[in-house]
């Protein structure tokens, strides 16, 4: 299993957002998560990526515990273990969070070069290939503020996809793009499958999700209902 | 160099003299950046005779006793007035120079005595010992024009006003007066016989420092053999 959640719970202001969530994702599996707006989908992805603490339960990524229930406490991964986890998981944010002081290309190659010690030229080549497939190669040297909404979304996708981690999470990856680009994104995701990379997708776009997912998880009231 | 030399003891033969290098003519930096002055020349001669290497360390005058007591310098030699309070903290040599609060007038002035100053405009530097000395004599003060001293930011300002004829006399340290007069032209000024009291300059050492006695002796010898006077005449109008 690349991802294992067990009894994960999370509250904000005393309100349960995630309630006893447990599920598993295998290598190369594509799983879609559905739920109403405000159901807790983004929160779930943020927890899996260690951006939010959880109140209860355990999350295991690629064999390492990110969170581990120990009595009434939840232990958090630290040091080398955390570093390893960070490198086995990726996330495309719902609101992109592109680095505003870097160009499109720099946004994409920053992590490959600095975290994975990829050769710069190779990184640029890979980035350009992705940009081309996402039809924004001509924006290579633009800054985020100069991009349209859909262009930003594509840069965010390219930034996460260049890393090929063990599991990659997409939060509403097609909310701002047209049908043609949507197809490219679907293709890229399908390729992950063949590379044995697991994919977790949160989306309101049922058509898109259904067409590529192996499995669907529905969340309501903080619980998995199906 | 700006570094600290190690503090001298009798073997090391290096002695660090602390001085305020803004204090012309006793010790100050000349245009070339060398520390020169009357006290500097005296000190150089004294320590040449005693066989020490001497180093001059500029200090802030307000911090002089702190400098001495934290061993940053070995002695203070810079127009250092001997007072009772200071004697508590440092050992002084015998006075080597008397500094009086003198009255400077223009050469052609008809003022010859203190009494002639009645009803005249008299100037001094603000917050100086000259001001203090004059204001101690309340009767005298009340007889001056406007019943007060004309105070200026610097002695230089006061002497300029004298030259311009806007004041009639300036009360000032004799040492400074003689230096400035030399600088501005000896033909223009005159120093009256009478004065407003005097103070004595000495060299200050850490309590119990035996170097003090040696310096005292060297100074005495220099006075006897005329070296002292030669140095004095180099710096001051007679």
């Amino acid at each position, binding site marked *: 299993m690349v991802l294992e959640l067990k009894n994960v719970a999370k509250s904000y202001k005393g309100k349960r957002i995630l309630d006893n969530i447990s599920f598993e994702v295998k290598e190369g599996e594509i799983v879609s998560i559905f739920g109403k707006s405000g159901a807790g989908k983004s929160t779930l992805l943020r927890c899996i*990526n*260690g*951006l939010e603490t959880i109140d209860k339960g355990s999350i295991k990524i690629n064999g390492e515990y990110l969170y581990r229930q120990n009595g009434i406490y939840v232990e958090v991964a630290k040091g080398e273990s955390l*570093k390893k986890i*960070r*490198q086995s*998981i*990726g*996330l495309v*944010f719902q*609101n992109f*969070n*592109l*680095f*505003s*002081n*870097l160009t499109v290309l720099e946004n994409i190659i*920053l*992590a490959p070069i*600095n*975290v994975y010690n990829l050769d710069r030229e190779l990184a640029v080549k890979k980035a350009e290939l992705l940009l081309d497939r996402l039809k924004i190669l001509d924006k290579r040297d633009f*800054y*985020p*503020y100069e991009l349209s909404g859909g262009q930003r979304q594509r840069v965010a996708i390219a*930034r996460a996809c260049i*890393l090929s981690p063990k599991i990659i999470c997409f939060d509403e990856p097609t909310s701002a793009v047209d049908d043609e680009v949507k197809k490219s994104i679907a293709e890229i995701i399908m390729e992950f499958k063949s590379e044995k990379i697991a994919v977790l997708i949160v989306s309101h776009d049922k058509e898109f999700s259904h067409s590529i997912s192996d499995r669907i998880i529905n969340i309501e009231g903080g619980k998995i209902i199906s | 160099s*700006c*570094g*600290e030399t190690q503090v001298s003891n009798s073997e090391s033969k290096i002695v660090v003299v*602390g001085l305020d*290098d*803004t*204090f*012309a003519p006793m010790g*100050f*930096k*000349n*245009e*070339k*950046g060398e520390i020169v002055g009357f006290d500097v020349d005296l000190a150089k001669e004294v320590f040449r005779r005693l066989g020490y290497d001497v180093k001059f*360390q*500029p*200090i*802030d005058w*307000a*911090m002089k006793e*702190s*400098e001495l007591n*934290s*061993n*940053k310098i070995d002695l203070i030699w810079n127009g250092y007035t001997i007072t009772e309070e200071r004697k508590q903290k440092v050992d002084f040599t015998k006075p080597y120079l008397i500094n009086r609060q003198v009255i400077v007038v223009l050469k052609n002035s008809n003022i010859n005595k203190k009494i002639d100053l009645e009803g005249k405009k008299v100037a001094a530097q603000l917050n100086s010992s000259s001001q203090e000395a004059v204001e101690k004599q309340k009767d005298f003060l009340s007889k001056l024009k406007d019943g007060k001293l004309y105070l200026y930011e*610097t002695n*230089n300002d006061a*002497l300029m006003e004298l030259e311009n004829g806007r004041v009639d006399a300036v009360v000032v340290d004799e040492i400074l007066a003689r230096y*400035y007069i030399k*600088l*501005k032209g000896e033909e223009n000024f005159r120093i009256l016989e009478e004065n407003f009291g005097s103070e004595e300059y000495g060299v200050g050492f850490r309590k119990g420092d035996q170097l003090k006695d040696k310096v005292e002796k060297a100074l005495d010898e220099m006075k006897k053999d005329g070296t002292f006077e030669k140095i004095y005449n180099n710096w001051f109008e007679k």
Partner: protein
Amino acid sequence: MNYIVNLLLSMKGGMFVTIYIFFITLVFSIILGIITAMIRISNIKIIRVVVSFYIFIMRGTPLLLQIIFIFFGLPMIGVTFERYTAVFIAFILNYTAYFTEIFRAGIQSIDKGQFEAAKVLGLSKFQSYRYIILPQMFKNILPALANEVITLVKDTSLVYVVGIADVLREGKIAVNRDATLLPFLVVAMFYAGFIYVLSDLFKKVERRFEYYR
């Protein structure tokens, strides 16, 4: 005219000292300030408390007293420094405190999403700061930073208290020596010129940072 040339020549040592103290202090306290700002916003309570106590001491007492304390006070407990060393310690400790707070303001006004994105990509803390946070921080605080840097220029004159001959002290020496106020005018113009150059530099750097929003 000739006098002014001579004066400038005789004061160039002091100008050099002023510039020297300025730059050494600036470089070290900016670097330390960045580090302290990072520590200051960390979530380890005890460290936060220590840093904010340090900042209170540094801002709560005058720099002049800090110099005096380090140069004249510490020898009493056996810690002795050279003049320049003492000055640099005092200046750097003091300015680090002020810079820390400016940098903290700059870092805290950066969108949290930038930190999160760096984390998710696996960048180390150091890398996030180097590539993302610090460049954005500097853009945020340049005008406020200029204030403090300009104050530093004027504060360098405090070194007089340990007898170091900066430009102001050399001006004073020349005033007493030559019996004219001209040297002070030269000093004032030196400061104004120096600050003008700095302001201009800041303006240019600001413009350099305008490439993104």
